[in-house]
């Protein structure tokens, strides 16, 4: 399998995504914003469509759209103009509707579009890998720097606010990280399924973990294993990698739930 360069590129890019997605997802799950990745993913779909329409690489327009979507959700939440789920619904549906209209206008309803929606192991280029590695590493460094503050806000948001932590800025950073994760993961998992890779490893890990630290470590292990197992199954089964990766993560979740039940 590794005789082919496209598989080596897919595995390397997948490893970055497998680590980053659950790290960022950890904070989304703790904020009970598990579905924010879906909302941002649908805005990224509109970005892909815009890229086709104006003749720019859809990867960059999707990344830009994801960041705009994340900022919009956080702004609506922070200003209390809409409750969290309503903010998400507004951005979610506007994104998918905008994407459908734009993609139709661009006449791009074709197989290539589906590689963005559900991932494709054939499409990861060296340029993609460089972008994924740089943005992924940058995102992980940002999480490492902000980790203490992000945990403090997750554990007790009101207490953090009283003590002077910049809670809106930190919440915005989490949304921005979610947007970056979606933007760089779309070639592997697809923008419609990446949210699952951010959430499933975390909710699996917290069923068997014994601390926050172990939850995060197990989440990373499950995320990475899901991506590597999913890509392997995708290669041998000639299946879309997004689906096989997410189903692998579902398998880990069921295993964790079984361990929790017998413990």
């Amino acid at each position, binding site marked *: 399998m590794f005789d082919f360069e496209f598989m080596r590129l897919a595995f390397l890019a997948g490893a970055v995504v497998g680590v980053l997605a659950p790290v960022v997802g*950890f904070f989304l*799950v*703790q*904020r*009970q914003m598990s579905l924010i990745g879906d909302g941002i993913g649908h805005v990224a779909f509109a970005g892909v469509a815009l890229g086709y329409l104006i003749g720019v690489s859809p990867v960059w327009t999707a990344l830009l759209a994801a960041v705009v979507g994340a900022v919009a959700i956080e702004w609506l939440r922070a200003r209390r103009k809409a409750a969290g789920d309503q903010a998400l619904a507004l951005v979610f549906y506007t994104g998918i509707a905008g994407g459908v209209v734009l993609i139709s206008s661009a006449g791009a309803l074709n197989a290539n579009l589906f590689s963005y929606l559900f991932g494709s192991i054939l499409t990861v280029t060296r340029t993609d890998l460089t972008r994924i590695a740089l943005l992924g590493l940058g995102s992980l460094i940002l999480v490492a*720097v*902000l980790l*203490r*503050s992000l*945990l*403090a*806000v*997750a*554990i*007790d*948001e*009101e*207490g*953090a*606010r*009283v*003590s*002077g*932590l910049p809670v809106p800025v930190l919440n915005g950073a989490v949304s921005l990280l979610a947007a970056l994760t979606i933007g760089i993961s779309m070639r592997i998992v697809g923008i419609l399924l990446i949210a699952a890779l951010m959430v499933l490893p*975390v909710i699996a*890990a*917290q069923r068997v*973990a*014994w*601390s*926050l*630290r172990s*939850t995060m470590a197990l989440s990373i292990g499950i995320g990475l294993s899901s991506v590597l197992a999913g890509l392997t199954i995708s290669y041998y089964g000639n299946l879309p990698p997004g689906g096989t990766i997410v189903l692998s993560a579902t398998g880990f979740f069921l295993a964790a739930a079984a361990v929790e039940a017998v413990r």
Partner: protein
Amino acid sequence: MPVAVELAGVDFAYPHGPPVLRLVDLRVEAGEFLAIAGPNGGGKTTLLRLALGLERPTRGSVRLFGEPADRFRERPRLGYLAQRSQLGVQAPATVREVVAAGRAPLRPFGRLGAADREAVDEAIERVDLAGLASRPLTRLSGGQQQRAFIAKALVAGPKLLALDEPTAGVDVAAQEALAELLARLHGELGVTILYVSHEFGAIEHVVQRLVLVRERIVFDGPPSTLPGVWHDPSHVHV
């Protein structure tokens, strides 16, 4: 005595809402242990939020250690125990992890240093949870969880400890244990304590001063001087 909290001529109403507080004057000396009580909806939590600079008065002024409360510069030195303090995370956070979160405002970036770890251990010992430091909060009783949150509020060496309805949802024995713990911490640390609760039976024998709020301050003095009929705060009449 320096003044910890000072509200002068404070009115407050939420946007498009009725008045919550009217003409409130309150001065709390540094090192005082003060209970703020009153009926539900009487404005006691709002008074605390004003004192902490989380809300701005519609009229009047609020100062915290001499500075305007909403621009107070030493915010990491404010310990806060929220109403029905509950873990914001679903993952199994240990006592040590929860308490360590209280150090983040002092040093928001990077890893815990030796001084942080020492402060965390000390705060956990102060609330008698040393033997349970590695245990997830979800496996502790309501009273023990509350003590973990008090340790978190103490871990940055607060000048002011604010507790909002800390006894909600815990049994009478835990309420009395909390009162004893707070009295001990007040004696050991000399920290100013603002304790907000709709009931004050468990705390009145340990606080120095009781303030009853029902839109206005209707009683302010030692608990021993409180008229008998007011021991049930729902009977407070303006």
